[in-house]
């Protein structure tokens, strides 16, 4: 308020000036935004054009922006000889375990934290907050030791298990559950419904948007997860896509095989980008609502 008042005292500009300025700004603004958008999209242009170029073509002119002869050879090589079909199957299996785990564990935990009164509630919420804060770097050595002790090194279960109940999912679910009116649940309680019945019959059906956000967020984090699968997976049979892509591109025979590497990059990023195009609301909500991913 004081700012507005001081502006009034110091500056008096004709209304028409302000109106004219507003009509002048948009073309400039659009120009700047389009430029920024093109710069942001540059890597996508490079990856698409590079993945369609043959090995010979890339060797003879590595920096060309567009392919001379378009070929899908790099993509067929990925699946025929580099094992990308298997990596993709592993990524899908891990993602299914992670998403299912998060939907079940986070809905239940979020419901309890938001809607039930019990001994130790503050402690449980403190655990969620602590889990949000602890950096992965601080725990991965011990997580690996535990995974080895559980006999899950080099298995898909070992890759998925630490992420099946992410604190971020619990947090999202709790925030959402707080917005559901107590009266709804109380009415069912008076009718004699047990807590589990209330959870499954009343709370979960209302939890759609939060469940959707959790599904998207946990899928995203599972599909893109790199360091942990890199540590746990020791043989090709348990590589997920990002680990397989990194291994393929670092193999001595492929170091300058950019076409193959970029085709692999497209295979890894395409599923998430397509999902994002259709469901961007949930992606943005998940990240804007919490500031974390």
């Amino acid at each position: 308020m004081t700012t507005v008042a001081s502006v009034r005292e110091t500056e008096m500009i004709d209304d028409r000036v302000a109106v004219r300025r507003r009509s002048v700004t948009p073309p400039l603004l659009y120009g700047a935004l389009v430029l920024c958008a093109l710069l942001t999209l540059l890597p996508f242009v490079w990856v698409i054009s590079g993945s369609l170029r043959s090995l010979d073509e890339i060797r003879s002119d590595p920096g060309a922006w567009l392919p001379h002869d378009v070929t899908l050879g790099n993509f067929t090589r990925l699946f025929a000889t580099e094992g990308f079909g298997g990596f993709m199957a592993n990524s899908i299996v891990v993602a299914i375990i992670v998403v299912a785990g998060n939907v079940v564990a986070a809905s239940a935990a979020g419901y309890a934290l938001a809607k039930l009164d019990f001994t130790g509630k503050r402690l449980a919420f403190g655990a969620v907050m602590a889990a949000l804060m602890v950096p992965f770097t601080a725990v991965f050595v011990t997580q690996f030791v535990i995974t080895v002790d559980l006999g899950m090194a080099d298995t898909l279960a070992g890759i998925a298990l630490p992420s099946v109940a992410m604190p971020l999912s619990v947090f999202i679910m709790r925030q959402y559950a707080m917005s559901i009116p107590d009266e709804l649940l109380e009415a069912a309680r008076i009718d004699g419904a047990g807590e589990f019945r209330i959870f499954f019959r009343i709370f979960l059906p209302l939890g759609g948007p939060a469940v959707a956000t959790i599904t998207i967020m946990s899928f995203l984090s599972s599909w893109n997860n790199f360091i942990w699968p890199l540590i746990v997976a020791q043989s090709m049979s348990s590589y997920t896509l990002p680990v397989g892509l990194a291994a393929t591109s670092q193999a001595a025979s492929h170091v300058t095989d950019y076409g193959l590497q970029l085709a692999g990059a497209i295979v890894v990023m395409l599923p998430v980008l397509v999902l994002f195009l259709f469901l961007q609301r949930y992606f943005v909500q998940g990240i804007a609502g919490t500031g974390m991913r």
Partner: protein
Amino acid sequence: MTPTVVPGAARTARRFRGSRRTAVSWLFLAPFTLVFLLYTAIPTVAALGFSLTDLRGTDLRNPFAVEFTGLENYLRLFQDESFLRDILNTALFVAVGVPLTMGIGFALAVALNSGIRRLRRTFRIVFFAPVVTNIVAVALIWQYAFNADGTVNKVLGALGFAGPNWLDDPNLAMPVVILLGVWRNFGTAMVLFLAGLQAVPQDVYEAASLDGAGRWRQLRHITLPLLLPTTLMVSVLLTVFYLQVFDEPYLLTNGGPLGSTESVALYTYHQFGSGEFGMSSAASFVMLVLVMLVSIVQFRLLRPRA
């Protein structure tokens, strides 16, 4: 609601219902709690324990060979020139990356919030796309674009400059690594700023423009002060991201050339890779303390909004 005759029985019943409710509640919390104990609580405590020992990768099958060494790992850590260099590298990443990411995110948020209609959705999708894009894939694109005869140098060549070998030059590798981090994160900053901007009541701007305040003045005297909480939140958030930076340097340069892009997180990983679990845990504990401190500030800032 039957009235109870004996008060003592009522109390017992209530206590019974209370403990039953507690049991049911913890049943709801059981999956999360199990995973939390196994993969967060125990590892955090154990990491502190490991950091006080000479645990090595080869000791996993022979735990009795491990010796308690007190603070020796920490002493070695702070005498290790590469660790000190990595702290500086990480600090540089934070000091350059955070303001750059926030500046771009803020400018785009203000531009998208300035009342434009056409293409607004498209712009938002484009600017947010890097956030969801797989880092391993993007790092490969970066290597392709920034190699000695890559697409970037092709453009520089056309403009008459001899392009350097970006990722093999100790002075140029870090800027390229930071650029990747900024590219990947400015969309997050933008979305958070947009959320903040949309909470600013429009009539404040209307009043200001009736009083003749131009766009620039409105930005300086209305938007910036009202967005202070969002700005603080975003800066702390990005600081936590960049303090832990691992993927970008690992994938682009693996910390090289000559360690010029090695971060603290990457140091931890390299120690782990060479079997020095004790040293790795000590380094990671230093990281934990740093991140915790910044995170506590973060939650203090977030609380009034939640």
